């Protein structure tokens, strides 16, 4: 059945629709792949029955001649940040261990409504805070990729590392991710997969465990651009339960995919040419520029002058919001409660949160609490908001000249688990992905090729607000020319 798990989302959907195979056959194959892949630690919870149940419904609907949804027969992995009814939703934190919501997130419900099935809940950095998946309370996901000639365990990226690893290892044809400062794009780049973070507000945040509300966006991760387009159509849409949701119709991105970029302008921001940028990454970027020219686009040098302040800005705003968003995990109503003998309320809070949150989460709560404190608020939070506006304006100015912007997704390829012990080193890995997040822009990562060590590299395409189509089209142009066919050799 290995052939089945090699199929893409669109191939599975079309095959089921045509009756070439049944949805149950598909689900069974992927359930088996998930069951064999314990060594990757990509799933926190596997739900083979849920996948089969959804598949049976699709097969029955097809047999009855009923119309099939956009994702009928496609089993997917769900990042464990999305609330799934009666299935543990942990955010990879001990503080939510055992928590089974009575509700379904808007995005996951839309996916089920489109005919998708749940293979399981995917591992991630705890509360989506991290870039390597090492902050998960359930242990890190191990990338299916290995550097040529080595067997050191590598990071699948983060925070959507379970999603990227599972898609790369063919444990699921597609997965949901969430992206706050690069959590879809960087893991996609590290694993040779494709992922898009749409414009802020495209996908409802209702039912997604919040990290930084003004930045969090859900998006699809899959094997190619078309699969992402199809899945994003199913995920997106206005939701009256989310006050920041965009009240816009969902375009037909998949039907309008077009890799012909004649008449389009692509911006190359000079500030992203960092001193000492990894040579393989620089080479991939140059290659990407050449591909887009080949597709007919005109390449233009642009400036995004406030880029250098983006990381500092992000690491003030995101922790500030997180420090408040995570206050609800207090041991009172759900999740973990640590109640030492004779403890009062304050002591219960302290014990619960000390035991329940991991180090990275605590670090960000502390940073966020600090920057919002009386006497520091203006110097940090207010200033960061002002810089955020300047960064957004940089992009606005740039998009007066160009249609999309091309950059590397991350400054390096995947590194070994345990290699980055200093959090600041880890934060620096978000340097290219954070600015578009601060501006709320659609951005995606597509595989560009392999570095000298045989590890995938990704290119990032950033578009105007609401122009996911432009981003997907440029991504498709690269995909068609990169012909990325490498896949990790199975060792698990």
């Amino acid at each position: 059945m290995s052939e089945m798990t090699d199929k893409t989302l669109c191939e599975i959907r079309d095959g089921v629709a045509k009756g070439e195979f049944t949805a149950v056959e598909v689900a069974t194959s992927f359930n088996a792949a998930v069951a064999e892949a314990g060594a990757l630690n990509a799933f926190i919870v596997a739900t083979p029955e849920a996948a089969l149940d959804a598949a049976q419904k699709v097969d029955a609907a097809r047999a009855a001649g009923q119309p099939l949804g956009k994702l009928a027969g496609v089993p997917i992995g769900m990042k464990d940040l999305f609330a799934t009814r009666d299935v543990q939703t942990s955010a990879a934190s001990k503080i939510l261990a055992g928590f089974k919501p009575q509700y379904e997130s808007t995005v996951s419900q839309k996916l089920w409504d489109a005919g998708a099935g749940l293979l399981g809940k995917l591992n991630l950095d705890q509360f989506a805070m991290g870039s390597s998946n090492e902050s998960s309370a359930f242990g890190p996901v191990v990338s299916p990729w290995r550097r040529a000639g080595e067997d050191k365990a590598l990071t699948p990226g983060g925070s959507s590392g379970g999603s990227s690893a599972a898609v790369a290892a063919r444990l699921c044809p597609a997965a949901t991710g969430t992206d706050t400062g690069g959590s879809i794009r960087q893991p996609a780049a590290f694993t040779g997969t494709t992922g898009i973070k749409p414009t802020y507000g495209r996908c409802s945040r209702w039912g997604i465990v919040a990290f930084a509300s003004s930045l969090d966006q859900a998006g699809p991760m899959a094997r190619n651009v078309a699969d992402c387009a199809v899945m994003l159509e199913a995920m997106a849409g206005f939701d009256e339960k989310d006050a920041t949701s965009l009240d816009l119709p969902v375009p037909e991105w998949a039907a309008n995919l077009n890799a012909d970029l004649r008449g389009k302008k692509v911006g190359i921001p000079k500030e992203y040419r960092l001193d000492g940028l990894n040579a393989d990454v620089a080479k991939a970027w140059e290659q990407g520029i050449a591909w887009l020219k080949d597709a007919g686009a005109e390449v233009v040098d642009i400036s995004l002058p406030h880029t250098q302040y983006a990381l500092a800005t992000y690491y003030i705003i995101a922790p500030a919001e997180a420090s408040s968003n995570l206050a609800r995990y207090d041991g009172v109503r759900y999740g973990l409660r640590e109640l030492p003998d004779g403890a009062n309320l304050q002591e219960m809070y302290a014990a619960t949160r000390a035991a329940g949150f991991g180090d990275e989460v605590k670090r960000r709560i502390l940073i966020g609490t600090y920057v919002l404190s009386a006497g520091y608020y203006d110097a940090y939070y207010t200033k960061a908001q002002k810089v955020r506006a300047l960064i957004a304006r940089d992009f606005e100015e740039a998009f007066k000249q160009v249609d999309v912007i091309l950059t590397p997704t991350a400054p390096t390829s995947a590194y070994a688990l345990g290699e980055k012990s200093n959090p600041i080193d880890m934060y620096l890995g978000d340097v290219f992905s954070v600015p578009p997040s601060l501006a709320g822009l659609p951005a995606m990562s597509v595989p560009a090729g392999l570095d000298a060590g045989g590890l995938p590299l990704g290119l990032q395409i950033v578009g105007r607000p609401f122009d996911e189509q432009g981003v997907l089209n440029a991504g498709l142009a690269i995909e068609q020319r990169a012909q990325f066919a490498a896949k990790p050799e199975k060792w698990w």
Partner: protein
Amino acid sequence: MSNYRIQGATGEWEVVIGLEVHAQITTQAKLFSGSATAFGAEPNSQVSLVDAAMPGMLPVPNAECIRQAVRTGLAIKAQINKYSRFDRKNYFYADLPQGYQISQLYHPIVGEGELLISLDDKNPDADTKVIGIERIHVEQDAGKLMHDQHPTMSYVDLNRSGVALMEIVSRPDMRSPAEAGAYLAKLRSILRYVGSCDGNMDQGSMRADVNVSVRRPGDEFGTRTETKNVNSVRFVMAVVESEAKRQVALIEDGGQVVQETRLYDPDRNETRSMRSKEDAHDYRYFPDPDLLPLVLEDGFIEECRASLPELPDAKRARYVGELGLSAYNAGVLTAEVETARWFEALLAATAKAQGKGEADVAKQASNWLLSEFFGALNKLSKDLHSSPIGPEAAAELLALVGNGTISGTIAKQVLEKMFETGDGAGVIVEREGLKQTNDTGAIEAAIADILAKNADKVEQYKGGKEALFGFFVGQTMKAMQGKANPQIINELLKKALA
């Protein structure tokens, strides 16, 4: 307007008062969730996933709450801020599921406004004073801890969690307990007119944080204390008085007032310290990233303005100017919106029943309502809300007096019967034979009889003791069983005694 002074051992002290009033907005649903808001429901029966702050839940503003806040702002002549924003006030407590309260610190929805108070609404000559209102902002209420459910644990009731409140912040413009009381009463009256808050202070729909400081008259403001959650006009006045006296005594003893939060104990009529400034939380306010800024369109504000009812000050002026009522009556009739509504319904029905203009029957209706009807309700321990008699039925009774069918005296009896039986005034008058008689023959006969029996008094009357006229009227009325037209009695008596 007030020269209220506290006489200390070292001289006179002036008290400075500001009130922060929390008023629950009258809506079916909470500020950011669809949950119901009824008072007195079973614990935790009105709690949504949002109110319980389940993971991934998001607030969505309830447009009706915004509308009511804007209407309230317009009613106090305040600036409506077209751009406002919600902020999070962060602190941990078991009754606060989110770990933060959504409020408006930096950009409140309503800015500067004012309220006109009078120390005595019923006295047209009483001084009035304008009290500044700094702002109104909208925020969530917290839940409630219950300490009496278990020997060692506290329980949490989240029914109130997320209920919409307006916080109405006055300027420190009040200078006496009476002014503070008048301000709160007037504010409550306006909120009830507007319909944005039911003003039920005993149910917690309205409560005040009372800021009090003292100073030598004319000096700079002193250090203030804030007494939390005071839930009646009377208690607010008591807090001002006891807290000001405490501060004066403290200062005169060489101490200093500490900026702190205090609680009022009505049983002992004193305030006590709750927490000092040093223990104050750092609330880490910041804009709530789950909510977009609130931007109001001109059209929306104008709709809110158009929806406002006539407010008490305007109504009182109209009652005096157009209806010719006394300032006293106008003040009493307009103080409570229910009274004014009842009166206006009575007025309309009375004018219709008697085929006259409202101004022609306004005095009759208002006098009867305030003296006869309120008195009768009072005896039965009822109020307008629980009155078994409505304005239409009352108008029928007044019409019978107006057209001379019954006298005012008989009307009192009829009203009692109406309360007893629920029957209409006309039915009662007919059944009990209470119609006033204009039969001059019968009255003349009664007068002749009375004068004959009281020849001595007739002598005295004729000798100059004119006060005896009333005696003859009373005797005649008694003989006529109260049903004689008093004017005819007067005329015939005068003739007979001439």
